């Protein structure tokens, strides 16, 4: 794995009918270290999903570049969308198999399903799954491609608190066993602190980086909600500008 450079000079939505042209992102530079877990925190509507779509090559109407620092190629992407986007006519297992190129990867899929506690449901169609389970399938699918960069767009939104905690714990354990560079979008600061190595705070219209903060809490203590809350308070006190973003 190599580092990833994201440099977006400008992303503008053109004027349509009565809506004026709108610059969503301007001069945004991010450098992602290999294996680093980064949380992007910003107010809703600030263009976080637009940024992820640009990185995933779903939106190519922008000025700038996305690339692996040691090669000229684009990074291989695993994307966990805000809604799981599973193919309803394919079973859980088929949904994962479809993204994997190598037909000999059966054992990798088996172990991923096992780690995400999905083995009993692997032959079930997505319509019969709960939202929490669908999200776990989406996470498994993204890990299955062994990406250079994992994009996660508020993947735990609209889950109830205990389910979100459970899926988050599963995600972290999977990530610790299979380290990948992660760009995780959220507007929940507690969630960001629980997950990230580094927090990047973003402003709205046009989006740009306000501050970058390392999370000093050791991984083993991330399940301690008191430690997370203390760090959150400290952050809000030290950086009053952050409060406005949340």
């Amino acid at each position, binding site marked *: 794995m190599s580092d990833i450079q994201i440099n977006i000079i400008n992303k503008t939505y053109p004027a349509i009918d009565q809506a004026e042209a709108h610059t969503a992102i301007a001069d945004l530079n991010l450098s992602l270290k290999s294996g680093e877990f980064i949380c992007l925190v910003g107010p809703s509507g600030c263009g976080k999903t637009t940024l992820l*779509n640009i990185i995933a090559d*779903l939106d190519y109407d922008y000025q700038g570049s996305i690339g692996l620092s040691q090669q000229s190629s684009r990074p291989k*992407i695993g*994307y966990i969308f805000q809604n799981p986007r599973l*193919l*309803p006519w*394919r079973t859980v297992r088929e949904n994962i198999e*479809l*993204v994997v190129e190598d037909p000999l990867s059966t054992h990798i899929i088996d172990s991923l399903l096992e780690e995400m506690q999905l083995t009993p449901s692997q032959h079930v169609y997505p319509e019969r799954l709960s939202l929490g389970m669908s999200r776990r399938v989406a996470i498994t699918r993204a890990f299955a491609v062994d990406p250079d960069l994992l994009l996660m767009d508020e993947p735990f939104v609209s889950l109830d608190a205990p389910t979100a905690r459970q899926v988050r714990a599963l995600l972290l354990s999977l990530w610790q066993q299979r380290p990948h560079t992660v760009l995780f979008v959220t507007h929940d600061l507690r969630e960001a602190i629980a997950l990230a190595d580094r927090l990047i705070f973003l402003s709205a219209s046009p989006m740009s980086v306000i501050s970058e903060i390392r999370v000093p809490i050791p991984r083993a203590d991330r399940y301690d909600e008191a430690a997370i809350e203390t760090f959150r308070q400290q952050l809000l006190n030290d950086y009053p500008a952050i409060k406005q973003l949340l």
Partner: protein
Amino acid sequence: MKLTQQFLALLSLLAFLALWQGSALYINNHTLPTPAAVALVFWQACVSGQLPFHLGVTLLRLLVSFSIAMLLGSAIGIALGRHKKLDAFFDNWLVIFLNVPALVTIILCYVWFGLIESAAILAVVINKLPSVIVTIREGARSLDQDLLDMARCFGFSRRKTLIHVIWPQLHPFVMAATRSGLALIWKIILVVELLGRSNGMGYQLHLFFQMFDVASILAYTIAFVGVIQLIELSILKPLDRKALRWRR
């Protein structure tokens, strides 16, 4: 519950036959033969091999023209549904072809290409094609962009995207085009055969009409309706069940 429904279906069929029998006895001439007389003609036509031969010829024409119309129509429909400029360009053509009467296309095909088999098939395809395109185009317009983005992001090839993402979403539209298509093509093929072929159901019906042989016309009609029902029950329904097994 299911038994009651089957009983009702049987009862309605019997009622229909009784009504037919009653009317035939009341009218009492050869323009409306009794069900028994039609059954006898049906049996004789089957044994002589006439009915299976002509039905077979028509079915073959149906199969060929239907397959061409569905394949071509699906491909064009998907292309128009996905590309706005292409759609804007060809929309008028579609409207024109949708509104040309079937009889006109058939006559023109025979005049331009002669009374040959390929002209007959072409006439059927041209008649069916626009409605397949319109139905599939509606399907292609309503494809879920989120799923297409997912496929793109995970590097699905065009073929993989078509088979696993696009086609399952088009299934209801394809089935609608198939069902309406079968019904339409049957009717057009009969006219095509009546006007320019020397075999097939249409040719036979024309012959019976000239001889005022109503019993044979009804016997062939029953064979005809029976085959369509058979296609529905043995091919389309199982296909539906298989394709929609993922639904709750």
